């Protein structure tokens, strides 16, 4: 090789600027974090010193929040499981929830016509749960088969955008099918009123929601840890290719994941409908987004994370506006509760990018 064919580029002697080492990003984020926390603390201090809220009121707010959070928790588990296995956000999970509610609604109407809802509430709730689960599972599996499976190896944005499209499509399909007016969901009269537990009066519907949600989380934890299907799910979550080399049928595991996510969504849908007495085509969107936020907040892919994220979100939405804003004399504090939802999300992700229960390690090169 002849010399001089390649001209040796002059080597610039770059030097490190004075501010080069200044951790700009961390500083910005720290400042934001401190500002938000300080603002919240100041608001809380003012609210408490105003003293408009009684202790009973705070207690009630927390209980309402926990009940709402339990529903978020159930939906969030569906997001989390799919994410864990496929690394994709099933944006349409809220619609899976909505179809579950409609499925059970039509059954509930029949039961109500025969007076069963009030004469044997436990049996009818069980039937409704099954109906809700069947419907949600059917939609979830169909969704996976038609919209997601062909895209399993596509770049990550592709299935996410598909999921957003599917969400919009399903939502408006339900609107076309069932009309856009919300429909009243028949609820057993015995579900009204409250029980006193440990000296605290708690709405019966709230108690049922919390109990069912905790049971489902426990069952799911057991399922994933102990059963064969659960173990293969974890294997697929670790590495799809290796799992399939190990003789695991990846397609089957993915379908199972959607089935379980759908079942949880179906249960959540029936609980939601029983608590609020309404079903409608847009009912899935907001709980879906909130549950999705809860899942990310807790650490997506983790069962405990979804549970914790759901609870935090529920309580924050319930208590937050009253606690942080009343004292600052901000009008219409409850209007601003979504600001809390997403602010806490940003804060958590700044300091723990993997969510509360997630791992914060950067990806390895």
């Amino acid at each position: 090789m002849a010399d001089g064919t390649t001209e040796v580029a002059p080597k610039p002697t770059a030097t490190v600027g004075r501010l080069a080492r200044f951790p700009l990003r961390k500083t910005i984020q720290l400042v934001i974090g401190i500002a938000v926390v300080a603002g919240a603390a100041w608001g809380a201090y003012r609210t408490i010193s105003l003293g408009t809220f009684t202790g009973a009121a705070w207690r009630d707010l927390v209980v309402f929040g926990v009940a709402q959070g339990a529903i978020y928790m159930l939906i969030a588990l569906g997001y989390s499981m799919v994410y864990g296995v496929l690394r994709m956000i099933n944006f349409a999970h809220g619609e899976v929830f909505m179809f579950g509610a409609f499925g059970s609604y039509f059954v509930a109407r029949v039961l109500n016509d025969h007076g069963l809802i009030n004469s044997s509430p436990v049996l009818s709730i069980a039937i409704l749960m099954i109906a809700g689960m069947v419907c949600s599972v059917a939609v979830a599996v169909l969704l996976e088969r038609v919209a997601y499976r062909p895209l399993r190896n596509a770049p990550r944005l592709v299935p996410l955008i598909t999921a957003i499209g599917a969400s919009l499509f399903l939502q408006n399909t339900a609107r076309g099918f069932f009309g856009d007016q919300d429909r009243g969901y028949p609820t057993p009269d015995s579900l009204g009123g409250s029980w006193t537990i440990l000296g605290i009066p708690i709405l019966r519907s709230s108690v049922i929601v919390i109990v069912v949600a905790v049971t489902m989380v426990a069952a799911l934890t057991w399922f994933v840890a102990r059963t064969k299907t659960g173990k293969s799910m974890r294997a697929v979550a670790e590495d799809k290719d290796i799992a399939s080399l190990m003789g695991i049928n990846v397609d089957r595991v993915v379908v199972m994941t959607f089935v379980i996510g759908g079942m949880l969504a179906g249960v959540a849908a029936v609980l939601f409908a029983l608590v609020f007495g309404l079903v409608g085509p847009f009912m899935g969107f907001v709980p879906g987004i909130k549950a999705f936020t809860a899942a990310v907040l807790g650490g997506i892919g983790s069962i405990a994370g979804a549970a914790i994220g759901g609870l935090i979100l529920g309580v924050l939405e319930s208590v937050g506006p009253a606690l942080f804003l009343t004292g600052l004399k901000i009008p219409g504090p409850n209007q601003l509760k979504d600001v809390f939802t997403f602010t806490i999300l940003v804060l958590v992700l700044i300091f723990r990018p993997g969510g509360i229960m997630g791992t914060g390690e950067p990806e390895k090169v």
Partner: protein
Amino acid sequence: MRRPSWFAVVTVLGALSLVAAGCAKEEGGGGGGGGGAVDCNTVEFGCVTYAAGAPIRVGTLLAISGSVATLGLDSQHGVSLAIDYLDGKFDGKPGQLVGHPVQLDNEDDLCSKQGGQTGGTKLASDPTILFVVGTSCSSSALGVADKLLGDKGIILISPSNTAAGLTAPDQHNPFYMRTAQNDAIQAKVVSDFVYTKLGFTKAATIHDESPYAAGLTGGFKTFFEQAGGTVTDEEAFTTIAGGGSSDFKPLLTSIAQTKPQLIYFPDFNPECALIAKQAADIPQLKGVKLMGSDGCNASTFFDQAGAAANGVYLSSPIPSPGASTSGLLDQFNAAYKDQFGKQTAPFNANAFDAFNVVAAAVKKVAIENSDGSVSIPRVALKDAVFQTKDYAGLTGTLTCISTGDCQAPLAVNIGVYLSPDVPTNKPGSEPIFNETITLEDALGSG
């Protein structure tokens, strides 16, 4: 074959348009005519001229799709019945106006600014549109459709806009008018009811971020505080369809801390029903009365709220009592049921009146030309509508005032519903309170 393309396409298009132009000049055009006092060629905004036998074109700009379709379609049916009644009878066959059939061009206001803009532009761009009945939602009209159409001299008359701002003197567009009642009246009556009849001095309000609800709670606050009451808490929420939550318990608990005697929530369903239901679950709200408005007052409220609807006060503006004695209202209701089924919103009669008020004015100013065509000067038509006085409409005796409110003195009923199962307490039953006032009365005191 080098470059046939562009030239050929352009040539073909040019030829086509020439053909079209050759066929032109059959309709539209100047119209020439214009006898009498008005010269169509010089008067501002000119005249609309319809050839002999050609239909008079009327636009509607109503919310005919989506979740608010019930509101817009209901008004559209009211307009259709008005056309039916042009011949003096409800027989399902359209009548004629000044010797011409009437053709409707139905546009959708989408209950939004964008819808008002698109639909308004479309109607404003059609020089053969005589006037427009619309919009359904105040936000579609305010500063959007009223201006777009007004700039072309086209009347926009609304059957269901209730926002006070539309006819506020500094915002009113000269070609805008409405037959729906101004929210100021309802807010005033509700305030009178709460303060005088119930004797309450502390109330809280909740609005749903819609201009309608925010207008009513704002108006209520003004009137109630003038009377000497206190608004203890003003809350708001995002509707479920708009991305809000179904859980109102935290919000209601917050309100309970300010110890109101009544909560006023002039919103829509399902939120009204949810608020009524969940308020029953809050122990600290025991004894606190609930009050909704005509937005809540629909059959869905009773379906969804169930037993929780018991004891909720609901206001409902109705046509003034004198109107129904003519028997026309009964005929109208029968025809509506016959042709379109159940009435889905309370504004069909207002739509009927809206069309008729303008139609009556058309009869006054239309110029019959010698060739059988008819010319209608736009400004004269507007002026004629504003001169409407004591017109016997379905909703009462209408008088138009200079800011565009063409309304009868309005009665607002306030009913309380003890149980959804008791038929006498269904909406439309005997009110426990009613007050009839005019807009001037309401505004004069406010």
